[in-house]
């Protein structure tokens, strides 16, 4: 990789702009990511201009609405409210979920005790349970946090458990043969070796957490981004409504990308070179 970028530097000054762009396109993933977004937004813009529905704004109108909402502070206030149950719920789910999953992966008895609960919870249509939460916990932060946990926890637990079960047994034997104790075995071998699947579960959990918080804000009481969506829909401000929806999708995507970055750079450094 480093050799390739070096000779790219040598070639680039002599080449024309077109050739440089082609070189860049061949070597950089970001070029394709930008291209993919460009295609999506162009299609959106065209669909909005047709228009496919009077309630479907163009991409540029949506973008303008987004900046307007950032400007008047309503978007920032909404995110502040939405992020509270989300961050709280995801943090609890991540810590509790990974801990429970690891315990279940290490002990057959804990697996038999806990796995059925989480398998049922994962299979259950959680949206149907969200209204029940309001009966017990009302409409405040606790109820919304619980909605996030209900969606995020099962997938994190089950993935963490699978991750630990699929750890290379030869590495565990290696640790034992060099007299590693149980704690070293868990922290130096099992968790790092399980981390790719652990992180896959965490990414699914975070995505589920976003679903949970949106369900809570749409089904329990309209607050935060959920309130923006509900309000702008009710007054037929469709560009603003779409801006709120797109903003939460973007937030979710960026969070997942950040998680991926953390995994490859902090947990598994060898994946940067391949």
């Amino acid at each position, binding site marked *: 990789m480093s050799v390739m970028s070096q000779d790219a530097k040598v070639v680039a000054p002599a080449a024309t702009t077109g050739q440089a762009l082609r070189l860049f396109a061949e070597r950089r993933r970001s070029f394709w990511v930008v291209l993919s977004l460009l295609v999506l937004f162009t299609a959106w813009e065209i669909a909005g201009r047709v228009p496919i529905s009077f309630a479907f704004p163009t991409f540029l109108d949506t973008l303008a609405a987004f900046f307007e909402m950032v400007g008047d502070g309503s978007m920032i206030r909404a995110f502040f409210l939405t992020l509270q149950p989300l961050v709280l719920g995801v943090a609890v789910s991540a810590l509790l979920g990974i801990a429970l999953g690891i315990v279940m992966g290490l002990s057959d008895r804990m697996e038999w005790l806990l796995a059925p609960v989480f398998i049922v919870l994962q299979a259950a249509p959680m949206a149907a349970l969200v209204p029940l939460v309001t009966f017990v916990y009302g409409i405040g932060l606790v109820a919304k946090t619980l909605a996030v946990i209900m969606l995020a926890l099962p997938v994190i637990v089950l993935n963490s458990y699978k991750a630990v079960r699929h750890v*290379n047994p*030869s*590495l565990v*034997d*290696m*640790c*034992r*043969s*060099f*007299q*590693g104790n149980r704690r*070293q075995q868990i922290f*130096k*071998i099992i968790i*790092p*070796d399980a*981390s790719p699947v652990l992180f896959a579960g965490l990414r699914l959990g975070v995505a589920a957490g976003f679903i949970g918080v949106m369900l809570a804000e749409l089904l329990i009481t309209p607050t935060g981004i959920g309130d923006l969506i509900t309000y702008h829909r009710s007054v037929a401000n469709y560009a603003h409504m779409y801006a709120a929806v797109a903003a939460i999708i973007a937030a979710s995507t960026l969070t997942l990308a950040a998680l991926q970055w953390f995994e490859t750079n902090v*947990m*598994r*450094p*060898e994946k940067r*070179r*391949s």
Partner: protein
Amino acid sequence: MSVQALSKDEFDPASVVTSDPVVRVETISKHYGTVEALRSIDLQFERGKLTTLLGPSGCGKTTLLKIIAGLVPATSGQIVVNGRAVTGPGPERAFVFQDFALMPWATVLRNVGFGLELKGLAAAERNRIARRYIEEVGLQGFEDKYPHELSGGMRQRVGIARAFAVNADVLLLDEPFSAVDEQNRRKFQEDLLRLVEMERKTFIFVTHSIEEAVYVSDRIVLLSPRPGRVSNIIDPRIDRTADPDDIRRDPGYLDVVEEIWQSLRHYAE
């Protein structure tokens, strides 16, 4: 180059002389459920020698090695190392794995020093020791590489350096070269002999390759399958000061290979 081997009917493992046993295997049996993997194995491993456990697949040679390592519990019998009965892994034994068992997320340096890391040695000290053994197995310059950047042969060198680094008396090698291609295998066998000479340790080596066993071993223990039993013990007594290529052409070497093949051939399907 003489060959001492007893014919099968008059063979008695207890009669094989071992002056200074570092590892004693005493009536070890192993059952997996109803399957009998090993039946009352009695063996002694001489200090400073390389002993090979050789046999067809299913003879329980890897199981026996893992029992000696303390990684697999025996159903009955005991393992005595340096005069003390052992029940689990210990600092006087180090294991080299068939599949290398390297941590893919750790560099060569950290992998080699991992045994010392588990013992709680400070980073500077364990890196100093690790570097020495990395050099000894011929991997200098690769300290900061990750295992996936190395060839199979180089990965196993890392596994061997890791086992050397903890300075155990006994090295247990489980088919260490089976995942290495033929050209590198020969080079590896020569390097192993050099390391045996240099390190003055006891080696217990598992292989299914007759040529490899005869080429590297001071003593070969032949195991027969289903259940695994000791069927013969052979001391190849090969003059290892000779050139490796001459050894492989030597009639004495070829005779031992042939003799072992004759005693194992009826197990081949």
